[in-house]
């Protein structure tokens, strides 16, 4: 009977879990294997370091990451975590990264707006002073904040990777508005831009971001070959980590909790069987 309960619950969840179809269409994200998949998956620290470099040298020119501080880079599970410095604020590498940035501050004596070198407590600086400036520099489109990117998009890491590597020449018969790119992995509705057979409208949408990556655009310190796929994969791993920096702590806590609950359930079942042993029911 319990089995049936689970079957019903699973059925219910299957309904709920089925992808909700929108009026927009898009290509299924590419299947990629990630080291952080599954209950036991962990982030590859070298990959996170490369990914941070891609973010820093490419993405951060336009995209903010308002929820991230430099100290996060040195916390447990982060790209520059060093077991010698449990407190990420003391991590010398993180400090040196932060110092490279000039942060807006107010001089406590004069009240003037000044620039000072960053500290590990500072947030990643925003490339634009405000939203209007960000739009003005990007043809009217606002580059989204990347802090939560892997949580905030259906498909998560696979979606990010697919967008970054999925730029295509627009098919013949499609009018691409100026300042836009066609990307089949971007959700969109192409029917208004399609001049051929209306039953064969291509899937995908327009994206304002030009293809950001190119071979050897970022040189990796560990000698990894800098292909577009590699850069995309690494920056996706970094963004996935940044979206939920406590992932590894969560999974290891969860594993212990599940094992404990399993044993607990077993003990309770044994106790239950004994207590009910002489009751006919």
């Amino acid at each position, binding site marked *: 009977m319990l089995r049936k309960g689970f079957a019903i619950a699973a059925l219910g969840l299957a309904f709920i879990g089925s992808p909700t179809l929108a009026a927009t269409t898009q290509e299924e994200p590419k299947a990629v294997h990630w080291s952080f998949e599954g209950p036991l998956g962990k982030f590859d620290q070298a990959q996170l370091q490369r990914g941070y470099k891609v973010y820093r040298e490419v993405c951060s020119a336009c995209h903010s990451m308002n929820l991230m*501080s430099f100290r996060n880079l040195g916390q447990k599970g982060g790209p520059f975590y060093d077991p010698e410095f449990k407190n*990420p*604020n003391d991590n010398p590498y993180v400090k040196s990264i932060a110092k490279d940035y000039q942060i807006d501050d107010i001089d406590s004596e004069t009240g003037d707006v000044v620039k000072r070198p960053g500290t590990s*407590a500072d947030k990643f600086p925003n490339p634009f002073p405000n939203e209007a400036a960000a739009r003005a520099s990007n043809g009217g489109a606002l580059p989204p904040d990347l802090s939560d990117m892997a949580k905030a998009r259906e498909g998560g890491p696979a979606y990010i990777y697919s967008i970054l590597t999925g730029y295509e020449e627009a098919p013949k018969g499609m009018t691409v508005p100026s300042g836009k790119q066609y990307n089949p992995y971007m959700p969109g509705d192409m029917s208004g831009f399609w001049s051929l057979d209306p039953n064969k409208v291509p899937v995908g949408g327009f994206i304002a971001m030009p293809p950001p990556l190119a071979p050897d655009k970022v040189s990796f310190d560990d000698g990894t070959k800098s292909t577009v796929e590699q850069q995309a994969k690494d920056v996706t791993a970094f963004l996935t980590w940044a979206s939920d920096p406590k992932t590894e702590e969560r999974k290891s806590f969860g594993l212990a909790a599940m094992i404990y*609950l399993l044993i*607990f359930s077993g*003990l309770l079942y*044994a106790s239950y069987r*004994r*207590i009910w042993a002489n009751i006919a029911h």
Partner: protein
Amino acid sequence: MASTVVGATPEHHTGGEDPNRRDFIHIAATVAALGAVGGLAWPFIDQMNPAADTLALASVEFDLSKVELGQQVVIKWRGKPLFIRHRTGKEIASAIKDNHADLRDPQTDEERHKAGKAEWLVLIGTCTHLGCVPTFGGGDYGGWFCPCHGSHYDTSGRIRKGPAPKNLAVPDYTFLSDSKVKVG
């Protein structure tokens, strides 16, 4: 009453079952339940401790050149006032003179500043009585005076008179250069 000896409730027994073994399961299950509650209690308690962003701001750097001789600057550190006092020679001398006076919390002036930096006194600016902020230069000893309950501190921040039990606390700090300190 009081007859809860192990196995004294025969109606719960199945034939030939060892009562000790039967009770063990129930005890183990109960202990496991308490363990689960206890295990979950810690995260629920620990969440009230300072969060990572609060800890990140736990140290401040300060440029001493902003403090005039004979003055003090108050900055906020960990949500509390921090006194950074640039002492005059006279104030230092009076603090040293009293090193062996009848002190409630005996400490020499040398123990309260960094070696060779007698002119700089860095103190946590909360009265050790009940946490008010003492006023600069007040009181009978020229150090600080707490307006709440009348504690007098000398120019070394030692308690001399009034209800406070301890000297003004000295935080952990280091000189990064001649004119720069890092507190925390």
